């Protein structure tokens, strides 16, 4: 057995990593806060309203006010609820939403953990987000919450398959599971981005991403008009806020992944401009704008139609396109695909 | 032995069967209920095509290919041919039965062919991985086939028992395999045999591994004390499925045992022989005695299957090429007899009536002398009465046991088969000396009658001339070991 003193290096690594995690999470949380603000403003404009404009200049302090309000509210645990799991629910919802950020690169050098199997890691971690929803719904001991949980579980599992297949197309094109390598595979300007050869997969991925985050028009897990607020109907105060944070953090994550895998990440669209994090932010912001736009435009899908779209439309499309990509890579035109 | 990493030709029969299964799946989904005949016809075509491919590339030397997972030797080719034959016979016998019970669906044929594929994989496996995957392919298809009659609670219960105990057996088998892997560091049967040739330091884990493997094998074979599922599954499953379970899988199970014990763990024969002796004696004792008390023919044949498996184990435990050859002969003959026995129940049953009780056979002679004669031959053969082939099969197995000096075992086996003769002959008595219980005419289709006649007469013919089949078995074993 070695002495404890030997592990100072390890401890230093751990502390240093913790600091880096903090440096990642704080801006992320700010991003989440202002995403809610952007959502309300943008949807407001789309619906010819003004949106929040009371707290601070143009309502800019509104998210802060919301957060303070939620923090001060009481967390009510229903008497019939399964206590431990009721509290575990929101934690399980937010943990994967944050953990996945560990491997997301912002630029060549700005990444917390540049691991080989980054894409796989992201898929694995995001696939666990569903537990928060299911556990919350079940532990609440309420029929609306339970219905929401069941819907959400079935929906997320269904769309995860299509999403996974879409990613298979990307990793075939990039021939790597490392997210930085995937971005490098798209260097050389706008026309080298994977969105072009993998366009069907891009569409499937984006829509599945909306479904995966339970956003409108796939928000049947909440479905205000049918099951009140779905899985989080019994949550209040900070516990509710955590679900809220998780949903928006997941949205940003999906947007970031779409950017990295199909839109060239931090690469500039034209070769005469330098690459940089600015491009990353712009592209991610654009995808997030799409999320909001969808919400403002589409009515909610009916549940069986969601299932049909996932299983009978998306999965076949992705399967066919994977075969097309695989086949094309064997032809002289293979360079078009990677 | 020739080695080749990627040589697909030896696996053509398997590939062909898989392609045909996919074809049948698609075709059957596209046609409406009136054209289910298509699936039946295509299944028979599949069997014929596979037979052709196997015969065309009949191997004289073992060929190891597909990364050492697949072996093509005379043993596997002979067994595969018998597998095709017995599946074909099953399909012919059970067609009317299935149609009358609303089971005449593409799924039955597809699952039967999947099971066949699983058996083919088992038969030509040379690696623990393929052995296990083939076994699972077979078992999964069988579970589903038993449960196919969804409205029958007995069938569902049988499927449930079969599934749970089968899963347990698979677990044991895997556990044993993993121990052997731990000891030898390899999963290929040939490598294991080489690694164990000069003994090993890890004797205790090896013996424990063998214990688990033998227990798992005994489960799958249905040898006492791992036989509990056999009577319930045979009884509860629709007779067509019982016919299937009771015939071809026994041949595959023989191959499974011979591959693991005879080829992989050959050098450990002293370890597993004792275990097989216990299994064999218990199976023969319990099978033959419990069968006497049964009033249901399917159940009786289930116990008879247990005792026959015990007898077959005698040949394997001899551990010699003669022993393996005679066990192979025994299992092929048993498959033929089992096909006839359950097939007879199918031939006599009609819509809304299962001819599976002993009294349903009363006075069969007056209703159909020819079928009664066939049944007489089958029962004589199962009991081991000369001149039917059952006698010769038992005799050759006993010879192998005597050769290794286990005379007491041979004597015990003879005693138990004498006890067993009682219940087989009771059926003969019922058919020939009792008044018919029900007078409805027998509506078996002509093709099923013809096949049944061939089946019955084959038992007589093989009994009179056993040498060709015996020679094939001995040759297959000699050339493959």
């Amino acid at each position, binding site marked *: 057995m*070695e002495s404890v003193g030997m*592990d100072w290096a*390890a401890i230093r690594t751990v502390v240093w990593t913790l600091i880096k995690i903090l440096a990642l999470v704080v801006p992320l949380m700010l991003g989440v806060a202002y995403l809610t603000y952007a959502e309300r403003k943008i949807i407001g404009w789309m619906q010819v309203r003004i949106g929040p404009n009371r707290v601070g200049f143009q309502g800019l302090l509104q998210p802060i006010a919301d957060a303070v309000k939620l923090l001060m509210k009481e967390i009510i645990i229903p008497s019939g609820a399964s206590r431990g*799991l009721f509290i575990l629910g929101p934690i399980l919802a937010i943990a994967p939403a944050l953990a996945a950020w560990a491997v997301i690169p912002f630029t060549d050098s700005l990444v917390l953990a540049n691991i*080989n*199997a980054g894409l*796989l*890691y992201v898929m*694995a*971690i995001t*696939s*666990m987000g*569903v*537990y928060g929803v*299911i556990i919350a719904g*079940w532990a609440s001991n309420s029929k609306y919450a339970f219905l929401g*949980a*069941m819907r959400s*579980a079935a929906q*997320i*599992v269904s769309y*995860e398959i299509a999403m996974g297949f879409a990613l298979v197309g990307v990793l075939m094109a990039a021939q790597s*599971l490392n997210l930085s390598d995937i971005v490098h595979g798209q260097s050389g300007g706008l026309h080298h981005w994977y969105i072009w050869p993998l366009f069907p997969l891009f569409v499937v991925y984006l829509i599945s991403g909306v479904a995966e985050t339970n956003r409108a028009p796939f928000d049947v897990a909440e479905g205000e008009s049918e099951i009140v607020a779905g899985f989080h109907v019994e949550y209040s105060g900070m516990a509710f806020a955590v679900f809220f944070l998780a949903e928006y953090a997941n949205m940003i994550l999906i947007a970031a992944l779409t950017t990295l895998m199909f839109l060239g990440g931090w690469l500039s669209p034209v070769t005469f401009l330098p690459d940089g994090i600015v491009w990353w932010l712009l592209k991610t912001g654009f995808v997030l704008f799409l999320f909001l736009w969808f919400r403002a435009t589409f009515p909610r899908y*009916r549940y*069986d139609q969601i*299932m*049909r779209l996932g299983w*009978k439309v998306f999965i076949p499309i992705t399967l066919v396109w994977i075969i097309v990509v695989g086949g094309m890579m064997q032809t002289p035109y293979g360079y078009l695909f990677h | 032995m020739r080695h080749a*990493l*990627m040589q697909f030709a030896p696996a053509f029969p398997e590939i062909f069967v*898989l392609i045909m299964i996919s074809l049948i799946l698609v075709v059957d989904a596209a046609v409406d209920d009136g054209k289910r005949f298509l699936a039946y016809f295509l299944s028979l075509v599949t069997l014929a095509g596979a037979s052709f491919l196997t015969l065309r590339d009949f191997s004289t030397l073992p060929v190891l290919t*597909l*990364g*050492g*997972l697949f072996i093509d030797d005379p043993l596997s080719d002979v067994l595969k041919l018998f597998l095709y034959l017995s599946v074909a016979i099953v399909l012919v016998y059970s067609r009317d039965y299935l149609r009358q019970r609303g089971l005449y*669906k593409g799924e039955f044929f*597809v*699952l039967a062919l*999947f099971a066949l*594929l699983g058996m083919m994989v088992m038969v030509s496996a040379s*690696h623990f*991985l*393929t052995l296990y*995957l*083939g076994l*699972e*392919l077979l078992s*999964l*298809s069988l579970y*589903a086939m038993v*449960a*196919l009659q*969804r409205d029958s609670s007995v069938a569902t219960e049988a499927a449930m028992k079969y599934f749970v105990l089968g899963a347990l057996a698979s677990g044991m088998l895997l556990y044993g395999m993993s*121990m052997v892997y*731990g000891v030898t560091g390899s999963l290929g049967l040939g490598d294991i045999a080489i690694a164990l040739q000069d003994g090993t*330091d*890890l004797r*205790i*884990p090896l013996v*424990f591994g063998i214990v688990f493997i033998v227990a798992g094998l005994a489960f799958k074979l249905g040898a006492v004390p791992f036989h509990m599922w056999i009577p319930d599954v045979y009884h509860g499953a629709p007779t067509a499925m019982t016919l299937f379970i009771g015939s071809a899988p026994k041949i595959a199970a023989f191959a499974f045992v011979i591959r693991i014990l005879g080829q992989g763990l050959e050098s450990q024969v002293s370890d597993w022989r004792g275990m097989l002796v216990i299994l064999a004696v218990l199976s023969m004792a319990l099978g033959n005695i419990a069968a006497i008390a049964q009033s249901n023919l399917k159940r009786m044949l289930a116990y008879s299957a247990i005792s026959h498996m015990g007898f077959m184990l005698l040949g394997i435990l001899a551990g010699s090429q003669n022993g393996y050859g005679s066990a192979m002969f025994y299992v092929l003959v048993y498959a033929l007899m089992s096909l006839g026995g359950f097939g007879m129940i199918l031939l006599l049953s009609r819509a809304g009536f299962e001819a599976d009780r002993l009294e349903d056979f009363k006075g069969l002679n007056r209703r159909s002398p020819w079928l009664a004669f066939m049944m007489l031959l089958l029962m004589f053969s199962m009991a081991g009465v000369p001149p039917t082939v059952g006698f010769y099969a038992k005799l050759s197995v006993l010879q192998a046991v005597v050769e290794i000096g286990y005379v007491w075992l041979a004597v015990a086996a003879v005693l138990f088969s004498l006890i067993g003769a009682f219940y087989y002959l009771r059926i003969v008595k019922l058919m020939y000396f009792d008044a018919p219980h029900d007078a409805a005419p027998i509506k078996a289709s002509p093709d099923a009658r013809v096949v049944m006649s061939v089946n019955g007469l084959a038992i007589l013919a093989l009994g009179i001339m056993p040498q060709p089949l015996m020679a094939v078995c001995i040759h297959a074993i000699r050339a493959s070991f």
Partner: protein
Amino acid sequence: MTYTTAIFYFFASILVFAGLRVITARNPVHAALYLVLAFFTAAGLWMLLEAEFLAITLVLVYVGAVMVLFLFVVMMLDINLEKLREGFWDYLPLAGFVAVLLVIEMALILGSRHFGLEVMGAPAPHAADYSNTKELGRVLYTEYVYAFELAAVILLVAIVAAIALTLRRRKDSKYIDPAEQVKVKRNDRLRIVKMQATQKPGAGEDGA
């Protein structure tokens, strides 16, 4: 104790605890959740063995998909624990005996005497650029392609069996087919009828 060993014991103890709770938890949902925990920690252990692909796949497949569906079913079941526990004490002596026997046997076999580091030796660690994913992919599609295809066939059987056993079209079912609904065009539902104006000549345009 090194850093890795500490992590190993951390994961291992959680794994054993979770495994025990799977079989002792009274509530089936709790049991299923402990199973999730067990899978997750097992994945951590695999990670220590440099099998990152397997570890992540374990999480992705078992935690992310299989257990979700499992929970989905378990949550909807009305499991009567009293009935399940019936006869527990009657079978305990025999079952306990078998269990103790098994544990002793396994302790005899799996102890360090046979499979310890002195006997087997630890495999050499791989270089930093070693990719478990690539290696697995390579053997899976070359040496083990036959077994791989067989596994696929087994899954196909499972699909066929599941559909054969559960698909039942009831005649009185009010099932609606979303595919049919989505395919509907405007002309299938809406008929625009041109009608002659029925107003009397001379009446005003805005008269109603």
